[in-house]
């Protein structure tokens, strides 16, 4: 998150870190150090990152294999067994329609993953494209894009999302689109400020001096060196998007209420606060865990993607 801020005011610190202690060049390493294996090694050395990855992978697996894992159909109502406390039969109890909570949470991970990932991917896509244009081409593009970003930035996320959803109707796609559309501005700003500093790096001049095309300079030199903070921000935003989606459900504009989705579950369960707390506690925990997983993963990725960090 910090990167966001320092990025915002344009004082992002991207200068190459201090000179590392001289590497042990004594023994020529013959081993082919591939890009990925090195990143992987750095990543795996970071316990928190691995923990985050574990959470995310488990969630993804759960989402993909929900039908195999879930003990029951998340939509199956059993009106004779409504509001049953957690038991061996229903590990996390049943809701007001006698649906198995555990199964709903398991299926809910699908929506969470889709909404969380897709909306952030969308925001990233728009934000990175526009941020790159603004940062690299500067001038009128910069002014134009940044003013538009200001507009979106000043527009409260939930408000924007609600309007779009009213426009498109309820459902997963509108939620994804609206969250994406109203969160790209941060990505664009972040990337732009990073690019502004990377743009002046000597290796960019070197590539220009070689006669490299703009495309090449942007794609090979500028973007890879400016997206890390975007990656971190994106990862932490996944959690924010999931929370926002849950809030939309609370405000009655999320996905359709029968859908097994964490926000819906919290929304339905909140009325039972103090009576049947398990109804809102477990879905809330699911959201928190997911958000934590992505944040850890993001921070880990940033560290791993940076070959300088050791």
């Amino acid at each position, binding site marked *: 998150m910090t990167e966001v801020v320092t990025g915002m005011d344009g004082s992002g610190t991207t200068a190459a870190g201090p*000179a590392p*202690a*001289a*590497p*042990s*060049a*004594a023994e020529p390493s013959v081993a082919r150090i591939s890009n990925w294996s090195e990143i992987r090694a750095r990543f795996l050395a970071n316990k928190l990152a691995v923990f985050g990855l574990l959470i995310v992978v488990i969630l993804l697996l759960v989402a993909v294999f929900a039908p195999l894992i879930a003990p029951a159909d998340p939509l199956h109502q059993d009106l004779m067994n409504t509001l049953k406390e957690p038991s061996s039969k229903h590990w996390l109890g049943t809701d007001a329609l006698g649906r198995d909570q555990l199964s709903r949470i398991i299926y809910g991970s699908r929506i969470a993953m889709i909404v969380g990932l897709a909306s952030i991917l969308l925001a990233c896509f728009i934000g990175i494209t526009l941020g790159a244009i603004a940062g690299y081409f500067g001038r009128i593009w910069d002014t134009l894009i940044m003013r538009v970003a200001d507009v979106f930035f000043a527009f409260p996320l939930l408000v924007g999302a609600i309007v779009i959803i009213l426009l498109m109707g309820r459902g997963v796609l509108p939620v994804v689109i609206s969250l994406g559309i109203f969160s790209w501005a941060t990505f664009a700003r972040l990337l732009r400020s990073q690019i502004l500093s990377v743009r002046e790096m000597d290796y960019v001049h070197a590539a220009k001096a070689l006669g490299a095309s703009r495309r090449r300079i942007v794609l090979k030199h500028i973007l890879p060196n400016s997206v890390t903070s975007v990656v971190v921000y994106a990862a932490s935003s996944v959690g924010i998007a999931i929370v926002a989606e849950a809030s939309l459900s609370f405000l009655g504009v999320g996905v359709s209420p029968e859908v097994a989705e964490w926000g819906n579950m919290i929304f339905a369960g909140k009325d039972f606060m103090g009576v049947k707390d398990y109804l809102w506690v477990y879905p809330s925990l699911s959201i928190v865990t997911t958000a934590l997983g992505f944040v850890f993963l993001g921070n880990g990725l940033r560290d791993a993607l940076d070959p300088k960090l*050791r």
Partner: protein
Amino acid sequence: MTTVETAAESIGTTAAGGPLLEVRDLHVEFKTRDGVAKAVNGVNYSVSAGETLAVLGESGSGKSVTAQAIMGILDSPPGRVAQGEILFHGQNILALPESERRKLRGNKMAMIFQDALSSLNPVLSVGFQLGEMFRAHQGLSKKDAKKKAIELMDRVRIPAAKERVGDYAHQFSGGMRQRIMIAMAIALEPDLIIADEPTTALDVTVQAQVMDLLAELQRESNMGLILITHDLGVVADVADKIAVMYAGRIVETAPVHEIYKRPAHPYTKGLLRSIPRLDQKGQELYAIKGLPPNLLAVPSGCAFNPRCEMAQDICRTDVPPLHTVTEADGGELPGRGSACHFWKETIHG
């Protein structure tokens, strides 16, 4: 200010005559993710009042870390003094409690850093930062402190000091900033100043101005000066004696005149030979082969051995102690030492 005479105040009044500062077998380590980096490995040197000791050596050899250990401003964690003594006016300051050491800093010993811009707080006016010294150590009022700050700025020849006392670091040129750093160091007339590469970031003409000023101020108040640098030219200009560091150790010590004439360590020798000279246009430059050592994996034996042309088997196994260097006839050379198994061959060969 206080009635109780603290240890720090008593320092400086006792033990006159001996060296001002003596570093004995100092070891400093840093815990890093990849292991313990032994940045300083048994450094010995001393400075007397009015004397200038130049500490030479390439990047990462431990010059700054030693200085920081003396000042007590090591990054700790991860750094720590693992072993050794630092005697200031004969008293081991490493044994003092932090509150006592704080009173020494700025007051009895001061430090000038390499990069003046980043060493000055960007959001406080330079006058304020200068005055702070007097407020913290002498309890002066804000107004008096400001007056003192102006005096100081005058003293380091900052034009229009009165008008500029409220300016911020970024509003001064590089040379002026460094002069402000010097002003800060001499503010309380300390006994010892450590200047860590004070001019590396400056242009030659400005560097000359600043070095001159520093030398002059030192002479005026008879301070001990430790000048850290890797510029042999600067050393030749101002130093009285020299200590050369390599991989966390002192590899050679000598009075300034001696070392240029007769280096007693192959590293020093290589260093001197590899400097291009303004007054000569030679052929190919001499170059020390190989690379500086990795502190996480310092070569066994003499740390310089992989790069040394004279290296023999013993160099790969035994760490050479700092030999006292003698003339060919056996007469001792005062102040000279070399940590080379083959110092004789080096100095006489």
